[in-house]
C-alpha cells in the first residue's frame, strides 16, 4: 500500500534517499539543489535517517568523500547542480573507473557565464562521457522512482557503477506534484543492503587505485567499457522488478503516441510533458505525430532507439544545450550518428532551446513540429534551429 503525498522534486529525492537508508551523505549547497541536502540534514538531525552527514567545503570534496565512503562499502549519496557538477568533474571519472556504486541527484542548471541558476542540460552533457549510468526524469514520481532504482542497479554486483539521476532545476526540483510513496517493507524487498565485495578492510588488505602504465591502461579502460555496456541488461531487469513491486514500469526509450507516427519528437527532462500536450492536439487533428522520451542516456540504448524509429520519416530532436561549434546539439549529434548505419533512416532535424531556464511553451513546440517537418522536406543551411530566441538567428552554419 502506497501513500499519495504532495512533494517537490527535491523532497522526492530526499524521501527516496531516506528509504534507501543511506550511510553517508556528502553534498555542497548550490541552487537549485539546496532543498535536497537541507531536507536530508533535517532528517539526520531528527533521527529519521541514521547516516553520517558530512558538511563538506566543496563539491570536489563532496564527490571525493562519497568515493571514500563507497571504498569502505558504505552507501553514499551526493547531490549538486551546474557549477558544482563541473567542479567535481575529475572525481566523476574516478568513481566510475574504480567501480564505486554511489548515487547522485543532479538538479540540472545552465553553466556560467553569464551566471544562471535555471534549468538546462549543459551540466549533464558536459559529464556524459564520465562512465556514470545516467537517467533523465520527467516528473516527481519518476524522480522518486529513479533515485531508488539507482541504488538498486548501481550496487548490483554485475554492475558496480555510479548512477546520476537528472531532474530539471526548479521545474522539477521546486514544483510540488503528487507522488506515491511506497511502504518501507516494499523498498527493502526491492533494495537489498549493499554488499560491496571489494570494500577496504584490514582483514583483507586491497590496493585500490594503483596507477596504469601504458601496457595495462588500455585493457583497464576497455574492460570498463565492456562492463558498462553489459550493465544495461541489469538496468532493464531493475526496472522490471521495480514495476513488479511498485506497479510502475519504466523503459530506456519511452514511446508516447508513437504508433504509426511519421514524425517523432525526441526529448529528455521535464519539457516532454509540455510537448506531449502538443502531440495530443496533433493526434486529435489526425496528424501522425508522436514522441520519444529518451530516459536512459548512458549507457546509450542504441538497439531500443533504432527499433523505435525504424519506420519514421522525421525525427525532431530538442537539445537544452549547445555544443559550441559542434555538428549539432549534443543529443542530436549522437542520435544522427547512432542512426547512420541503418538501412533506412529518418531525416533528423535538431532544435536548441530552453537554455538557462527559458520557458518553452506549447506554442514553441507547435513551431518546432511545423518547422521541423519543413526542414526535413526542404533542407536548411543552418546546422540546427533555435526556439524562442529574440531577433533573427542566422549563421549557425558548418
Amino acid at each position, binding site marked *: 500500500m502506497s501513500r499519495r503525498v504532495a512533494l517537490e522534486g527535491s523532497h522526492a529525492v530526499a524521501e527516496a534517499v531516506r528509504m534507501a537508508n543511506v550511510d553517508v551523505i*556528502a553534498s555542497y549547497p548550490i541552487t537549485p539543489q539546496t532543498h535536497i541536502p537541507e531536507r536530508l540534514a533535517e532528517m539526520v538531525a531528527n533521527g529519521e535517517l541514521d547516516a553520517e552527514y558530512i558538511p563538506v567545503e*566543496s563539491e570536489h*570534496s563532496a564527490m*571525493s*568523500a562519497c568515493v571514500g565512503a563507497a571504498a569502505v562499502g558504505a552507501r*553514499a549519496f551526493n547531490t549538486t547542480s551546474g557549477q558544482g557538477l563541473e567542479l567535481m568533474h575529475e572525481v566523476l571519472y574516478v568513481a566510475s573507473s*574504480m567501480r564505486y556504486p554511489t548515487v547522485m541527484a543532479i538538479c540540472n542548471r545552465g553553466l556560467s557565464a553569464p551566471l544562471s541558476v535555471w534549468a538546462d542540460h549543459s551540466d549533464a552533457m558536459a559529464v556524459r562521457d564520465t562512465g556514470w549510468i545516467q537517467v533523465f526524469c520527467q516528473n516527481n514520481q519518476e524522480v522518486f522512482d529513479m533515485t531508488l532504482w539507482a541504488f538498486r542497479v548501481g550496487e548490483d554486483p554485475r554492475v558496480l557503477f555510479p548512477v546520476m539521476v537528472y531532474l530539471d532545476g526548479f521545474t522539477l526540483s521546486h514544483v510540488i506534484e503528487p507522488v506515491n510513496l511506497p511502504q518501507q517493507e516494499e523498498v527493502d524487498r526491492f533494495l537489498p543492503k549493499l554488499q560491496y565485495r571489494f570494500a577496504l578492510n*584490514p582483514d583483507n588488505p586491497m590496493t585500490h587505485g594503483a596507477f596504469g602504465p601504458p601496457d595495462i591502461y588500455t585493457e583497464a579502460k576497455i574492460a570498463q567499457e565492456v562492463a558498462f555496456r553489459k550493465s544495461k541488461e541489469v538496468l532493464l531487469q531493475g526496472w522490471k522488478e521495480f514495476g513488479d513491486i511498485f506497479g510502475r514500469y519504466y523503459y530506456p526509450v519511452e514511446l508516447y503516441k508513437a504508433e504509426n507516427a511519421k514524425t517523432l519528437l525526441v526529448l529528455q527532462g521535464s519539457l516532454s510533458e509540455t510537448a506531449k500536450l502538443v502531440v495530443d492536439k496533433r493526434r486529435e487533428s489526425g496528424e501522425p505525430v508522436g514522441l520519444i522520451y529518451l530516459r536512459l542516456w548512458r549507457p546509450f540504448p542504441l538497439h531500443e532507439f533504432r527499433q523505435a524509429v525504424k519506420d519514421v520519416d522525421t525525427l525532431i530532436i530538442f537539445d537544452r544545450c549547445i555544443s559550441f561549434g559542434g555538428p549539432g546539439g549534443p543529443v542530436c549529434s549522437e542520435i544522427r550518428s547512432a542512426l547512420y548505419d541503418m538501412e533506412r533512416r529518418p531525416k533528423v532535424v535538431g532544435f536548441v532551446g530552453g537554455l538557462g531556464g527559458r520557458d518553452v511553451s506549447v506554442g514553441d513546440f507547435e513551431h518546432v513540429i511545423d518547422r521541423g517537418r519543413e526542414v526535413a522536406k526542404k533542407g536548411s543551411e543552418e546546422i540546427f534551429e533555435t526556439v524562442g530566441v529574440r531577433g533573427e538567428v542566422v549563421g549557425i552554419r558548418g
Partner: protein
Amino acid sequence: MAQEFIKFGKNLVDTREFLAPGHNFCLGCGEVLAMRLVCKTLGEKVIIAMATGCDEVSSTPLPVTSWRVPWVHTLFENVGAEISGIEAGMKALMRKGRIPQRDIKFVGMAGDGGTMDIGLQALSGAIERGHNFLYLCWDNEAYMNTGIQRSSGTPYGASTTTAPAGKISVGQRTWKKNMVEIAAAHNIPYAATACPSYPFDLMNKVKKGAEIEGPAYIHILCPCPVGWRFPSNLTIEIGRLAVETGIFPLYEVENGRYKLNIDRPKLKPVEEYIKPQGRYRHLPQEELQKIQERVNEEYAKLKAKVAAFAA
C-alpha cells in the same frame, strides 16, 4: 603474520614490513624511509588514502603493489575529503551493526604539493569538521613526481624547474609556508613536525597522532637527493642538519601547547645545511645571511611560543 619486535633502548619496533620491498622509490629517498617507519608504527589495522605524487607512483604500478595494508589512491588534491568519507563510512557501518565495532586508524598521506597547495582546502575542511584521522605530509619541498617544480613548501633561495636560479633570480623568492601553524590554527588536537633522520621521534609522534581522538597532523621533512641535489648517502645527515640549524625544528602542538622535542643550546649555522645541496649552489653570501636572519627570527618566535604555551 607473527608479530615480533626489536628493542632499541626503550623503543619497540615491529619487525613486520607493511610496505613491501621492490618498490620504485629513488636511491636515498627520505620519503620512503619515513613511510616504512610510519607503517611499522601504524600496524595492520589501518586504512590509508594517498594523494598522487612520488609516494603513490613509486609504490603501485598496476598490476603490482607494495601495500600490505588497505590502501586507496584516487587524485592529487582530495585526500582530506576522501579520508573524511572513509572515516564517516566506517563510523556509520559500525554504528548500524553492519560491520563489527573495532579500532581502525584512518590515515591520509600526501606530498607538500598535495597538502600545502592544491589539497589545502580539502585538508582544512577535514580538520575543521573534526574527523578522526591522522594526516601525514611528506615534505620534500617541491613537486618531485613531476620534475622538481616549486611548491609553497619550497624554501627561499632554492632553485627548482619553475623557480630556477638565473641571472636576475635567486630561485624561490618566497619563504616556506608554515603548514604546522596553519594546522594548529584550526585548534587541531595534535600537530607536529618530524623527520626520518630522527626515527624514534617520528614513530612516537605517529603513534600519538594515531591514538588521539580527532584530527592529527604531522609534517615530515623528507630530504630528496634528486631534487635537492646531494649524494644519496647523505639523506640522514641532511635531515639532521635541517634540525640542528633550526631550519626545521622538531616540535609538537598538543591542544595548543607547544613542545620543542630537540632543543639545542646553540644552533649550527644554516650554511652547514645549505652548502652540500646543489639546489642552493648559486646563492651568494648575502642571501645566505638573509636566510640565517630569517631562521634566527623564526626560531626565536617558536621558542617564545614554547615558553608562553608550554606543554
